[in-house]
């Protein structure tokens, strides 16, 4: 266990060292557009009978937090592809490094990035007038939900990068997944106002679990049992995705 932890930490530190700080800010351009433009465009939807709420920004902010986490997690596999091209991946694989530590370090790094991004988006939403009645505990649960969906999706992206080994395929697959997964959830629209089939799919969509966990944790009356069960489902998804993605190293090694 100890070598695993030490290796995971050494590799996480590597990703933190080589991170371009500008990356966090560039990745915030999209959520700013969502909050400012999309938020303004649909400002009046709260008046639709049955929407139940008085501010669309308050409704939208958790959705944007989760979608942004998803977007940056989709790129996670690029770390591995860069390593494959530069020979770093081969060097790791012939060193006594746990495959699990190689996977876990990228996920820890992704989780840390998501925490920073999510907090900035929450502050932006707050500046634009969003209300978070339950305060810090609610925001913490929103960030936790975003982190868990980011970890699950980053693991998927990593696994895909090990199988496809090309940038183009990875980007295409990640972008093809992010928007549908976001639209097949209640990120932008109240559950009782979306078509029945979308509501049906959303129940089984982990992205929606993260949105719902965050939004219910931020409500005036919080049902912590509901929030907790969403978080447990997300945790399970993240673990399953991480384990499956680690197995993809075998497929990579067979191909070289």
């Amino acid at each position, binding site marked *: 266990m100890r*070598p695993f932890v*030490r*290796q995971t930490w*050494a*590799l996480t*530190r*590597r990703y933190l*060292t*080589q991170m371009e700080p500008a990356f966090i800010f560039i990745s915030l351009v999209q959520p700013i557009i969502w909050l400012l433009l999309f938020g303004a465009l649909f400002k009046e939807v709260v008046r639709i009978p049955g929407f139940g709420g008085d501010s669309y920004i308050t409704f939208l902010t958790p959705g944007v937090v989760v979608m942004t986490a998803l977007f940056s997690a989709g790129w996670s596999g690029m770390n591995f592809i860069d390593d494959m*091209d*530069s*020979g*770093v991946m*081969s*060097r*790791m*694989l*012939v*060193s*006594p*490094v746990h495959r699990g530590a190689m996977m876990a370090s990228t996920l820890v790094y992704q989780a840390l990035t998501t925490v920073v991004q999510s907090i900035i988006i929450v502050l932006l939403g707050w500046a634009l007038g969003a209300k978070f009645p339950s305060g810090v505990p609610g925001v913490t649960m929103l960030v936790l939900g975003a982190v868990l969906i980011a970890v699950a999706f980053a693991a998927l992206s990593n696994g895909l990068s090990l199988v496809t080994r090309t940038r183009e395929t990875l980007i295409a697959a990640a972008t093809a997944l992010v928007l549908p997964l976001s639209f097949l959830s209640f990120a932008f629209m109240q559950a009782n106002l979306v078509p029945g089939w979308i509501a049906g799919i959303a129940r089984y969509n982990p992205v929606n679990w993260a949105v719902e966990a965050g939004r219910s944790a931020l409500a005036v009356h919080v049902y912590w049992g509901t929030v907790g069960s969403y978080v447990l489902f997300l945790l399970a998804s993240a673990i399953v995705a991480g384990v499956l993605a680690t197995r993809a190293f075998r497929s990579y*090694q*067979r191909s*070289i």
Partner: protein
Amino acid sequence: MKAAPAIEAIELVKTYKGEVSALAGLSFEVEPGTVFGLLGPNGAGKSTTVKILTTLSAPDSGAAMVGGVDVAKHPERVRRIIGAVAQESGSIAALTGRQNLRLQGDLQGMAPKELTGRSEQLLDTFGLTDAADRTAKTYSGGMRRRLDIAIALVHQPEVLFLDEPTTGLDPEARADTWRALTELAARQQLTILLTTHYLEEADQFASRLAIIDWGQIVAQGAPDELKAALRGDSVVVEMGDRRGAGIGERALLQLTDVGSVALDGTALRARVPDGARLLPSMLAALDGAGVQVESVAVSRPSLDDVYLHFAGRSFHSAQEVAA
């Protein structure tokens, strides 16, 4: 008692999907503490062999031992006793030289104190102390390669694999790299397996060589032994065109003292017991056959000739086929 081999490859076979076999029953042994060269053109199977020996890829059949450990059965034990430098860099461009060494030491589970001392020592040996706190992407090609080798050595491996370590380096950087390596090999009991397609490099640095072609070892021995197997001199006659070379080949084969003649593009390579003495009669024979000679050179056998002799084609033509 003879020491157990540091590396042992037994009948390795490997075929990539939809391709001709990369390895077709490759076997060899490397004695501990020696520098062993695997020599062959691109595509001959050198990199595949290294990938199998370093646990990166698995053979279809056959077995391999490194430091007496079976690479297929205990890959994690093999990884602890080897260092490997692949053709691509392997060092992380965004980290400094020192950070790169520290990362590898952490991954190898070295004690922090030991790691610091070892890093400084390696930076010194490879002339990187002044550049230690610059990111690797600012390094020249030669410095980057030396850093790659230093990374592979940080945990004091028993066996070092170098896959085309000097490809793409200018002659000066190649010389620097080799100077650092030979110094190191002399100081500690390190077994080195290197692959190269530079004949001179193999000749100069390897104490034993195996010539590999089409996934098989076609000859092995010390460079001098291999050269001695080809008695006499090598005479290379450049004919300028293929037709002339074809006629010239038949003309030279008429001469009783000419051992063998091989066609190498538009050139003829003949083996003769005494090149200087026989040259006039060879030129006379070519003249008699009515073909023009562009140039002629007499030389002691080189590894190039060894390669031609054992692989049945010249090294350069094999390179062209592979390219």
